[in-house]
């Protein structure tokens, strides 16, 4: 799947992980959706919940906790977590900015937005700002081609972006204490 950054595969120096009570209840409700003996279907939804509860990335302790909760082997969790591009296997900033780089966005200035973002944040795609606030990613088609260029941050789509609108978004996120998660309601 073209992973560009190395995963953190050690537990050394990595914070321990435990699900919150609310998260546990949500995970159990998800596991109850499937027919008997088919609860492994809950793995991807539960990995999203674990990631949101672990500063936006899946550490080995977080994945091991998922395996224990679901009663499956850790390798079954690792192999899935490493397949899907929305799972971060190394620490990320408080806000992950995912700019679409695929052809339909490119036709409407996606490349220029990525270049602007790199300059504005002083980092390259794949990197995190020194203050830990922003991680910049270039991602594949987000299904928002008619409102390109655009980016995703957590659960939100930011569309029809100009350089000015991007800068405004950065300022707004700078003053947000909460992490942007995919699972945000």
């Amino acid at each position: 799947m073209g992973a560009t950054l190395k995963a953190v595969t050690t537990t050394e120096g990595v914070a321990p992980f435990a699900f919150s009570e609310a998260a546990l209840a949500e995970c159990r409700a998800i596991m109850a959706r499937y027919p008997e003996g088919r609860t492994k279907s809950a793995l991807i939804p539960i990995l999203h919940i674990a990631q949101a509860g672990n500063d936006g990335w899946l550490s080995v302790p977080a994945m091991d906790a998922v395996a224990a909760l679901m009663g499956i082997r850790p390798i079954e969790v690792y192999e899935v977590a490493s397949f899907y591009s929305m799972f971060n296997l190394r620490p990320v900033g408080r806000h992950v900015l995912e700019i679409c780089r695929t052809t339909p966005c490119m036709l409407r200035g996606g490349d220029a937005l990525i270049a602007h973002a790199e300059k504005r944040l002083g980092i390259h795609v794949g990197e995190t700002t020194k203050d830990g606030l922003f991680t910049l990613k270039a991602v594949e088609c987000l299904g928002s081609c008619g409102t390109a260029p655009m980016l995703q941050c957590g659960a939100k789509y930011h569309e029809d972006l100009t350089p000015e609108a991007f800068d405004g978004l950065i300022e707004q996120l700078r003053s947000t204490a909460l992490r942007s998660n995919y699972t945000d309601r």
Partner: protein
Amino acid sequence: MGRKLLLEHENVPGIAGLEVYRAKGGYRSVEKALRTMSPEAVVEEVKKSGLRGRGGAGFPTGMKWSFLAKPPGVPRYLVVNADESEPGTFKDRYLMERIPHLLIEGMITSSFALGANLAFIYIRGEYFYVSRILERAIDEARAAGWLGRNILGTGYDLEIHVQVGAGAYICGEETALLESLEGKRGNPRIKPPFPAVKGLYECPTVVNNVETIAAVVPIVNDGGEEYAKIGVGRSTGTKLISAGGNIRRPGVYEIELGVSCDEFINSDQWCGGVDGRAFKAVVPGGSSVPIVPYELFLRTAAGEPRLMTYESLSDGGFATGTMLGSGGFYAYNDAQCIVRSTWNHTRFYHHESCGQCSPCREGTGWMEKVLHRLEHGEGRREDIDLLWDIQRRIEGNTICPLGDAAAWPVASAIRHFRDEFEFHVRHPQKVKDPRHFEKEPFVRTPKPAAV
């Protein structure tokens, strides 16, 4: 040519909620099917409608449904494919966001027809916020008695769950989707067995696109024959087209199949023409379908006006035609570079290859490298033939169609725009500026298509 069956109420305030949706005639198809029709009769109407899968393959839906195995005592499932990841495609997102109950209604009616008591919507993880909209709609429908046990007192039970993915184009392929739904990596399965026999949890399963299932609502309401009156030949009904690229009016449009391509791209009812320059090329059905020069989009090789139908868009085969695909439509103006676009397409497929089959896993990476050097002024003349050779060896040699989907954009770009590739070899300094055609558009030498 402006009848809307799915998006008729797209701009009605509150249409995302059950009350307004119901007031606009929502859930009539459920009442009609469950109270007055047998499951077989619903399947029959879908067959009569001529509805074809709206996710891209265009396979007749009624036929797909009739393949569903029905061994006694074994559950059957309906899985809606809301993975919508084909570049250029954003119609399902629009439909689910605007009118979520239309999908839920279509799922109830379809599940009844198929004898399924549990159904899933598999939605791409990036659309997390849309999954919340769908969950709200499901909760509303359940509270009102449209879902759950003994629906409308008919004894029919159905539960629907929304399942989010986590970023993987390949999960739009139906067997990869089922693997993912089972909590595994999205590796496509070898077929046969087809999902209709062994699908989700090894049980008979129908996987249909969002728009396909939504179309079942008007088909059941008005009858399959009425639906089949719209369109041309085997392209019946309406189709959602998500239009983007260098056009004046990007957006999601519901068209009656059979609108002329010229009208669609140039009329203010739809794309509104080019964004201030001249059109150069069109990808009418998502990144996987062949790219064609603008003039071949407007007219077939025989000079006939081309229509927005499955048949007309593919007229001439791959030599001069393309495909309707998913309806992910995007147009290029003359500032765009076909080599750059092909490199971008190929990088996408390389990134999204699941890695099971070596022709796709290795071939897409190889093509990406070659295209990168061509686009950056480091290409060699023999690279063009090399690309042709690689794509030819990927096509048809993989478990799933991702390999073909990666090969076709490269093949069609070389077939129609070979001189532009050659220009990149001849003028390495000029193409080092990423906007090389912005000031001075590339002038093609028109030639008969022959490769």
